[in-house]
C-alpha cells in the first residue's frame, strides 16, 4: 500500500521551494508544471523540474509531477521528466479512459530500460471526468489513484464553492467508490483557505469519513493537520488488534466467524482492521507486532 495521506503541490518554476520540498514530511511532493506555471515559463519550469528530480533528495516523499493537459504540453513534459527518476505523474483534466491510455503510451515510450514503471494518478476535475471515473480508474495498470479537483469541477457545474462542500458531495463519493471498486487510491481535493485550520481539519475528517485515502495540499502548513486526521488513532489501532485477535482465535477454534463486543466480525471488518494495522506499521505507530 502506497502512503499518500498528503500530496503537496510545489510550483515547478520556483527553485527555492523545489529545493525544500522534502523537508515538510509530505507523503508525496507534486512538482507542478500546470497551474502554478505561466505559459511563457513552461519550458523553463520543465527543465528545472527535470533537474530537481535528478538532483534533489526528497527523502521519504514520493516524487510526483503534475504535467500539463494532454491537449497542451503533456507530450513535452512526459518526454522531459520520465527519464529523470520520478514515481508518478498526475494527469490533469482526465475525462475518458482514452486520456489515460494516451498518457500511458507516452510514458512507456519515454521510460528508459530498467526503470521502475511510472504510475499515473488521474485528476478528475470536470463533470465528464467524474462521470467516467470508474472506467478511468481501470483504464491502465499504471493507474494508482484518482484525485479529485473541486475548483474546476464546480466552475464547470456553475455551482458556488462552500466550506462545507455540499456541492461536491456526490462527486466525492463517486471518486471514492470508483477508486475503491478498481482497487486503487482516492485522493481528495485541496482545502484552499490556508489560514483556516479548523476548516481544514473538518474538511479532512469528512474526506476520511467518506473513504478517501489522502488529500492534496497546497501549503506545507497543512501537512501535519492532514496527517493527524488520516493517521489511525490509538483507539483505532487497539480496535484493529482486537479484531485480528478475535478472528485468529475463531479460526483456531474452527469457527467461520468471530464476535467482538457483541458484534459479528466478518471479512470486511477484518479487511478494515488489517488496513488500519498496516497503515499504523507504515507510520511506526504499531510497535510490537500485530497482536
Amino acid at each position, binding site marked *: 500500500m502506497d502512503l499518500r495521506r498528503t500530496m503537496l503541490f510545489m510550483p515547478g518554476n520556483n527553485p527555492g521551494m523545489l529545493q525544500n520540498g522534502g*523537508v515538510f514530511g509530505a507523503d508525496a511532493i507534486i512538482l507542478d508544471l500546470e497551474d502554478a506555471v505561466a505559459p511563457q515559463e513552461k519550458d523553463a519550469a520543465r527543465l528545472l523540474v527535470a533537474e530537481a528530480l535528478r538532483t534533489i533528495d526528497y527523502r521519504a516523499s514520493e516524487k510526483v509531477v503534475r504535467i500539463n493537459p494532454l491537449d497542451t504540453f503533456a507530450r513535452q513534459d512526459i518526454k522531459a521528466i520520465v527519464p529523470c527518476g520520478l514515481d508518478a505523474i498526475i494527469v490533469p483534466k482526465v475525462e475518458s479512459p482514452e486520456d489515460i491510455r494516451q498518457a500511458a503510451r507516452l510514458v512507456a515510450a519515454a521510460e528508459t530500460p530498467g526503470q521502475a514503471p511510472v504510475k499515473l494518478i488521474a485528476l478528475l476535475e470536470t463533470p465528464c471526468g467524474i462521470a467516467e471515473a470508474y472506467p478511468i480508474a481501470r483504464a491502465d495498470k499504471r493507474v494508482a489513484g484518482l484525485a479529485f479537483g473541486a475548483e474546476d469541477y464546480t466552475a464547470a457545474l456553475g455551482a458556488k464553492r462552500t466550506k462545507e462542500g455540499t456541492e461536491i458531495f456526490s462527486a466525492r463519493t463517486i471518486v471514492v467508490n470508483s477508486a475503491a471498486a478498481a482497487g486503487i487510491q482516492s485522493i481528495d481535493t485541496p482545502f484552499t483557505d490556508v489560514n483556516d485550520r479548523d476548516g481544514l481539519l473538518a474538511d479532512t475528517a469528512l474526506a476520511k469519513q467518506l473513504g478517501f485515502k489522502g488529500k492534496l495540499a497546497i501549503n*506545507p502548513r497543512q501537512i501535519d493537520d492532514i496527517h493527524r486526521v488520516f493517521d489511525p488513532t490509538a483507539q483505532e489501532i487497539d480496535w484493529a488488534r482486537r479484531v485480528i485477535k478475535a478472528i485468529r482465535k475463531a479460526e483456531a477454534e474452527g469457527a467461520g466467524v468471530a464476535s467482538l463486543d457483541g458484534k459479528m466480525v466478518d471479512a470486511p471488518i477484518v479487511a478494515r482492521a488489517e488496513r488500519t494495522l498496516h497503515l499504523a506499521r507504515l507510520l511506526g505507530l504499531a510497535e510490537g507486532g500485530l497482536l
Partner: protein
Amino acid sequence: MNQLTNAIGRSLPADVDGYGPVQPFAGAFATVPAMRRQAPKVKRILPGEQKLTADLAAVFKRIPVTDGMTLSFHHHLRNGDGVVNMVLAVAARLGLKNLTVALSSVFPVHAPLVEHVKNGVVTGLDTNYLSGPVAQAVSHGVFPRPVVLRTHGGRARAIECGQLKIDVAFIAAPAADEYGNLNGVAGPAACGSLGYAMPDAQYADHVVAITDYLLPFPLAPISIPQTRVDYVVKVDCIGDPKGIVSGTTKITRDPVGLKIAETTAKVIKATGLIKDGFSFQTGAGGASLAAAYYVRQMMEETGVTGSFALGGITGYMVEMLESGLFRKLIDVQGFDLEAVRSLAANPNHLEVGADFYASPFNLGAAVNNLDVVVLGATEIDTGFNINVVTGSDGVVMGGSGGHSDAAAGAKVTIVVANLLRGRLPIIMDKVLTATTPGETVDVLVTERGVAVNPRRRDLYEKLQAAGLPLKTVNELKALAEEIAGIPAAVTTQAKIVAIVEYRDGTVIDVVRQVK
C-alpha cells in the same frame, strides 16, 4: 608581529594598531574581573541654574567638546534616528577632528558617518551592531582605526569598567523636561525603553539630552533622571517615527521558517523547561516570532505561567503578558508601538538598562535567569561557534548585539537557521568571524534536522526520547554540501578593520578588510 591563539583556536595579533594589546578570549566564564568601577566627574548645579540650552553648538562650546573625544549615542530610534547625524554635523561645522563615536547600534540611516570618517571628523567607532553603508565602509577599510564590536552586555561592562570612556553622551529623548528627566514612552518619536542609554547616562563625563517633546517639570515616568543630565536641547525633530517602530511585527509565512519554528518549539518542550516559572527570550524576526507562537500554544495547552520574557520586546510578548502567560516583561528595547504602550501603562512591564540586561561583570544580569533563548546565525561551524557579524561575502552585516550575552546566560541556547541560505550551506568547518563561542550554544535547529552540541549529552537524550530528528552537526554539514556543494572560502586582506570583543572584553576574533 606576535601572534596569540585564543580558546576557540583563532590566531590573533598580540597588539593591534589603533586598538592596543589584545587579551585573547579564554572561555565564556574564564575571565574574572579584577578592577573597580569607574566614576564620572562629580559636578553640581546650583539653585536657579538652567539646563535648557539654545542649540547644540552652544552645548559643544559650554562643555567644551574637543578633538579626540568619545561621543556616545543610543540606537533606540533605530533606522529613524536623526540625532547622531545632527550632532556629527555640528561637530564637523565646528571643525572638530578625531572623534570616536560610541553608538550602541548603527543603521543605514547613519550613512553620513562615512563622510565624517573620510573628512577626519570621526576616526573611531565603537558599536554592538552594524548595518548598511557604514558596515560596508568598515569592511572596505575606510576607518583609520579598527572598529570595536561589542555585545550589548559587553558595552555596558566596558562603560562601567572604564574601558569605554565616554566624554559626552548625547541622548535622544522622545520626552524630556527642562531639568533633564527623560523617558521614551511619550512624544512623536516614542521608542519605548531607553535601556541602552542608561549606562551612558550613568558614567559619561557629560550628558546631553536632545528632545523634540518638552514637557513641564517633573516628567513621569522617569527613565533617566535629572541627576545625571547636564544639558537639555530642544530641536524640531529627533527622528522619523516610521523608522523607529515597525508597527505590528508579523509571524513569518515562509513555510521553511515555520517548519524550523515548530521544530524549535518541540525542542523546547523536550527540554522539560516549559513549566511554571519558565523564562524565554527570542528575537523580533518573523521566524523567532513563529517560535514564540508555538511556545505560546504549548504554554496555553499546559496552563503554564512563565516568570518573564526578555530582550527586544514586541507586541506579541505584550499579548503574552496581558493574557497572563508571563508575569513580567523585562524590556531593554521595544520594537513596536504595542511595546511602547505597554511600557507606559503596565507596572509588570519593566524598563531596564543594558547592564541589568546582560553585563557579565555585575551581581546579576537578567540573561543569567533565562531558561531558553532562540537566536539566529549567518554561519555556524562544527564546533557550534556562531557568526553573526559577517555575511557570506565577508562584508560586515550585523553584530552580536545581545547574541553572546543571552547565549552565555540561558540554560538552553537554541540557534535556528536554514541549512541552506539561498544556495549556500550555513555550516562550515570554521566560521569566517566567530562571534558567539560554541561552548555557549546547545542546539542547532534547521529544516533538515536538529544537532545537539556534544557537550550537552543530557539534552541529546531528552531530544532523542522526544523523537526529534537528530543528526550530528557534521551530518547536517554533509547534507548541505551534498545539495549545494562546498562554497569557496572567502579570502580577505591582511588589514584588521574590526575587533570582535566577547562580552568580557577579551577578543574572540577580528574582521579583516574584504578584497
